[in-house]
């Protein structure tokens, strides 16, 4: 029953409202036909460098495979015992130093070539100097969601990472510092870069410079507990104008109040505020996602469900129905309270 029902939570294909002060921009999912998370469809320099190396390694290993496989196939066919075998033992050959030398030296040379190519790409991805105009983001892995903080811009958000596009005229890479609040996680958006782990007490970093506007998908790639599977990543690559606009909107206080004040009262007098923050209100919890601009996000529960009033209501009522094992407790509210609370959350633009 659940699998059929839970399909309702998916299908995030609709164009989205990027921010209030910009014209609505339909984000084209320029998805490769095979998969939106195909490692062979890179859209950022680290992923492209990796692809270049990958193709070289694939070519070399493919050639080795062909040669050895042909030899194996040939010997299996050619040297099988025939029906009319005379029963005599074949010539007993014990070895040959020349042959051994040949198939030692050739693999050594191949390994040296592969190593040189690999070392070059390691250096180009890991040792790149930090450019002046880079956007800095701190990504913090939580069980089972992502927190993003932009220290230079004063933005705090969750689960949906916004970064500007980086084109050749105006290269704007994004540097991501990776931290963890609890267990190990791994940040993997295959079209943008290889994965890097988020490990508590062991800060890591990575960088991306997406070349095309769009939404890039990924998910946590290091087992982190019960809901490791539903810790999805969404990276929104926007034009510089749209990105600045988004930043500006995220730094404003959210527009709450009015009709929803009953919901705000519920929010601020229940356990909600132990974990969630709404800037400018009494809620300043840090354990769960910052909800100040909740309605600017397309999804809830780390990309698992679209951000609609219906889903929000169901999520508050029983998070386990959407994400069993999620650390958010079911809030045990009456229908009336749920309606009011959902209405309040709906005002957090």
């Amino acid at each position, binding site marked *: 029953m*659940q*699998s059929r029902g*839970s399909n309702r939570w*998916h299908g995030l294909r609709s164009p989205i409202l990027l921010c209030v002060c910009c014209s609505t921009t339909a984000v084209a999912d320029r998805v490769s036909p095979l*998969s*939106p998370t*195909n490692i062979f469809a890179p859209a950022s320099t680290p*992923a492209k460098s*990796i692809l270049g*190396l*990958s193709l070289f*390694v694939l070519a070399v290993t493919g050639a080795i495979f062909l040669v*050895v*496989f042909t*030899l*194996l196939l040939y*010997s*299996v066919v050619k*040297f099988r*015992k025939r029906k009319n075998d005379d029963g005599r*033992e*074949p010539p*007993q*050959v*014990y070895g*040959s130093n020349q*042959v*051994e030398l040949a*198939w*030692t030296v050739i*693999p050594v040379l191949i*390994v040296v070539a592969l*190593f040189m190519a*690999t*070392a070059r*790409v*390691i250096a180009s*991805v*890991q040792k790149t100097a930090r450019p002046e105009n880079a956007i800095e983001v701190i990504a913090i892995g939580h069980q089972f969601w992502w927190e993003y903080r932009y220290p230079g811009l004063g933005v705090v958000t969750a689960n949906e990472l916004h970064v500007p596009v980086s084109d050749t005229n105006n290269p704007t890479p994004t540097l991501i510092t990776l931290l963890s609040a609890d*267990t*190990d996680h*791994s940040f*993997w958006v*295959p079209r943008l870069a*290889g*994965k*890097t782990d988020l490990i*508590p*007490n062991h800060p890591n970093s990575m960088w991306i410079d997406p070349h095309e506007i769009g939404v890039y*998908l*990924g998910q*946590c790639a*290091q*087992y982190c*507990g*019960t*809901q*490791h599977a*539903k810790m999805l990543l969404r990276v929104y690559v926007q034009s510089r104008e749209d990105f600045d606009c988004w930043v500006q909107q995220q730094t404003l206080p959210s527009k709450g109040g009015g009709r929803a004040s009953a919901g705000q009262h519920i929010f601020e007098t229940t356990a909600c505020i132990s974990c969630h923050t709404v800037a400018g209100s009494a809620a300043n919890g840090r354990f769960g996602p910052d909800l100040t601009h909740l309605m600017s996000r397309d999804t809830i529960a780390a990309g698992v469900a679209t951000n609609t009033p219906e889903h929000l209501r169901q999520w508050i009522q029983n998070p386990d129905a959407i994400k*069993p094992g999620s650390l958010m407790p079911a809030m045990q509210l009456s229908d009336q309270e749920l309606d009011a609370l959902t209405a309040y959350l709906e005002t957090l633009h």
Partner: protein
Amino acid sequence: MSTESIPWPSATAGSRSFVDTLHEWVTTVDHKRLGLLYIAYALVFLLIGGIEAIVIRIQLIRPHNDFVSPQVFNRMFTMHGTTMIFFVVMPVLFGFANYLIPLMVGARDMAFPRLNAFSFWMTAFGGLVLYFSLIGANGLYGAGNAPDVGWFAYAPLTSQTFSLGHSTDFWTLALLVSGFGSVGTAINIIATIVCLRCPGMTLAKMPLFAWLNLVMAGLVILAVSPLTAAQIMLLVDRYLGGHFFDTQAGGSAVIWMHFFWIFGHPEVYVLVLPAFAFASEIIPVFSRKPIFGYPVMVGATVAIGFISMSVWAHHMFTVGMGAAANTFFVISTMAIAVPTGIKIFNWLATMWGGKLEFKTAMLFCVAFLFQFLVAGLTGVMLSAAPFNWQLGNSYFVVAHFHYVIVGAILFTLFGAFYYWFPKMSGKMYSETVGKLHFWLFFIGFHLTFDFMHIPGLLGMPRRIYTYEPGRGWDTWNLIVTIGVFFQAAGILVFLVNLLWSYYRGKPAGSDPWDAWTLEWSTNSPPPAYNFALIPTVESRRPLWDLKHPDDPDWKYE
């Protein structure tokens, strides 16, 4: 060298009570019986681990399936991995080593028969401790709670904070206890090979089987010790207020990774060297030629043993080790491809110009050559650190290591079962049913593990209990799951063949394959004392010398 058997009291008694038989098996210190106990024990766990794999694959047959809950799924992959590595592959390989090494080196038993029995029962106890977690971890109230931290159990997921109850403790204790058993057996194997070789058998005249197991045993001692140390540290963390891996108190999650993988990667070679050992005995006999380049094969084995101790952190390319460390582990990992490649070439050269007889055992070994070639090449891809940043922890890795553990190790193991079954049981198996097993398993293997690479390339991480539709993973996962049922059918056919042949098979005789190593010179099954007279050998193929007195090997070696 005599093939006569001397009457042996326990072998002649016709009808004994069940209790007597049980007592005899439980108290035995005979290397052959302990070997068979290891093998039987591993087969039971193979079925359990296989059922866990089937549950995992049914859950992943389509997106958003809800065959099992995420909690159960996480326990399943943890138990599947732990069971298969520690309680199937290691014991079954120790079983064959135990059974065959004294026979091959012309000894009457292992060097330390009592240590041998102790080691087996420790390993057996470890498996029971692991599965006792099902009722012991949370008490009867929480029955069904098994370890769910993954088989490499990364910190801090194993800390008291994130792993409540006792499931992780059972996992730790199981590995700790079976680790003592593994080290005991390793010491025994080394002592037997070093001290108990029969007259004339210099190190350079040992069967390759003994050489490979010697290196394997050395690796066990080196690799299992850090694992044991890490398990003790974890217990200290969990119960005595230690902070080795407690990241919130300044401990390090990364140090656990280093401890685990400095065990974990040599462990791969602990598992695969005995597989090489099987192939190195079976391929020559069914090609009717001696192993090509024996000294080079020995050298390559020793080289693999040394290099395998310096590659562990290629499991940690995404951990953020820095460019220098990453580069070091790239070259050390790639270097191991050279001796491994040499081995493949030597097996090929052994077949070259021979007269290949495709008995079931040989079929499994030829499939092993093909699959190990592929596994080695995907291993080279994974060793290129940047490529690994994409492939690491994805289904590509899962496909890669199953290609090694199933495609190489399990295939040669099946080969070994068919090759030595006549020796161990004294009966011939059914060749037709054996070939049915081969083809079912071969098709199932390729359906499952060939297609498993693809979702990895398309961004599917491992250890997820479900996945989103629309990512291009659905079809591949469906095919992968279908393949599992072919493999399961193959294993059932295998077990039926073993049991049926044991009771109904024709007598095999002492040397059904016209083979060349010493185990074929004694009865099938061998008497408790193995050899009435300790043999004397002059070459690596003593039985060849006997069968071809005009053209003996020792003239050429």
